[in-house]
């Protein structure tokens, strides 16, 4: 009995269901939650492929961080979903074209490349232990160090540009300088009046 097959089909069905719900749900928050679930189910599928590091990282990064921020934004914005769904007939033909081309591309890829693929690509990596995490770390920091660092720099660039775009001085923002607040002396805030002052 191969239990993995059943696990695979179970979670694949759940994944397809929640992925469809991301598009079909008529509430933006619920769409986001279904997206969270689809990340979760795909993490389970990766786990079946013995990629335990990647699947845990998928949950940690996408579910634990990215989607939380996403949900945060979606909740704050009052998205009117009915207005967004109005042009269904208008966009149907172009949507169908995109869908078909994607589907054909995927089918083409899976039909061709898995049969005739150069299997060397799978064994090119130096395996140093049974542990998926260790292998991945070893390969990333030796053979693919340059690509890895470039990806990191690109991400840093993204962070810096996002901050510069949003962090503009505005007259509305109230900024408190903690060191100024701590440096306050008694004389600046309290004035002790003697009896003569009151008269």
């Amino acid at each position, binding site marked *: 009995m191969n*239990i993995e097959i059943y696990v695979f089909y179970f979670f694949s069905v759940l994944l397809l269901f929640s992925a469809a719900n991301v598009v079909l749900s008529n509430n933006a*928050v*619920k769409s986001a*939650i279904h997206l*969270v679930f689809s990340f979760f189910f795909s993490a389970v599928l990766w786990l079946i492929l013995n990629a*335990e*590091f990647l699947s*845990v*990282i998928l*949950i*940690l990064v996408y*579910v*634990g*961080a990215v989607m*939380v*921020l996403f*949900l*945060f934004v979606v*909740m*704050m914005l009052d998205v009117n979903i009915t207005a967004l769904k109005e042009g269904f007939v208008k966009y149907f033909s172009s949507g169908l074209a995109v869908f078909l081309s994607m589907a054909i591309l995927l089918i083409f890829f899976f039909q061709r490349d898995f049969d005739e693929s150069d299997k060397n690509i799978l064994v090119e990596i130096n395996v140093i232990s049974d*542990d*998926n*995490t260790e292998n991945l770390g070893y390969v990333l920091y030796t053979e693919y160090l340059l690509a890895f660092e470039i990806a990191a720099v690109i991400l840093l660039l993204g962070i810096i540009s996002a901050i510069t775009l949003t962090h503009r001085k505005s007259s509305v923002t109230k900024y*408190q300088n*903690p060191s100024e607040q701590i440096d306050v002396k008694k004389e600046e805030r309290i004035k002790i009046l003697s009896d003569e002052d009151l008269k």
Partner: protein
Amino acid sequence: MNYFYFIFNTLIEIIFVVAPLFLIVAYTTYSERKIIGYMQSRMGPTRVGPSGILQPIADVIKLISKEIIIPSNADRGLFLTAPVIMLVPSLLVWSVIPLSEYFVIADINAGLLFILALTSLSVYGVILAGWASNSKYAFLGSMRSAAQIIAYEIAMGFALVGVLMVAGSLNLQEIILSQKGGILNWFWLPLFPLFLIYLISGIAETNRAPFDVSEGESEIVAGFHVEYSGIAFAMFFLAEYMNLILISILVSIMFFGGWLSPFESTFLESYFYWIPGFFWLSIKTLFFIFLFLWLRATLPRYRYDQIMRLGWKIFLPITLIWIFLEGIMIYYNVEPWFSK
């Protein structure tokens, strides 16, 4: 037959962990009320049983028998799933916690990552509870809590990166074993700044005083769970205390040698060798639980902008600098912690 045996065995183990855990949670609430009571010159609960010892059981019965009120126009499905989403990750994490040198339900290699991933999920319970309640107080509370949890999770993650750099493994048993050799070999000493940051971020993650702006009673009543009652509220309560115990046990494992004896490589070692590892782990964990209760009784609530500043502008840079320093120390094999 093999599957059946495996599943049965695991179920027994789960019951052995979860049932005492619930009891400990119940008596953590009791000891919290008693300890804070004495710290504030009060008696705490005294009526149910001798010196109030049965109070948590009375509370449980009360919470179970109360009605769950669902607010009008609330999202019914999400309103009821939010407490479950909050509780399940905090229960699941216990599967990888090594309770002694022999006992851990799932001794997985990526244990530390597993813990990080699961603890990052509990924020969904908070956010969804706040949103589904259709209440402004609840929504404000969940917004505050989400921003706070995200801010401190990063510092917490980096503190654990420091731990795994010294230990050289993501497996919790191996992290404990790499701290062998007495109190001075435990990671609290070489990673002292990271230990403090992990401890403080842990308090912030569990939304406890002095970081409890998400439920700040004087401002937003009870924050994200203001609309919850009965057993649904009890689940939030349970998750909060379970996270409190979890953070305490994680601090003991990561920085205080887990189940290792504190008398290792001293003249007392031979006198205490017969004490099981579980005892030492419990003592350490109970100490940190007490520390959390003590902090709650002592410190006033942080201002919101100060919480954010502490997380992003103080903790995060300190962890980054310390990881860099740690890398240098590992490179030069500084004895006795960083030598392989």
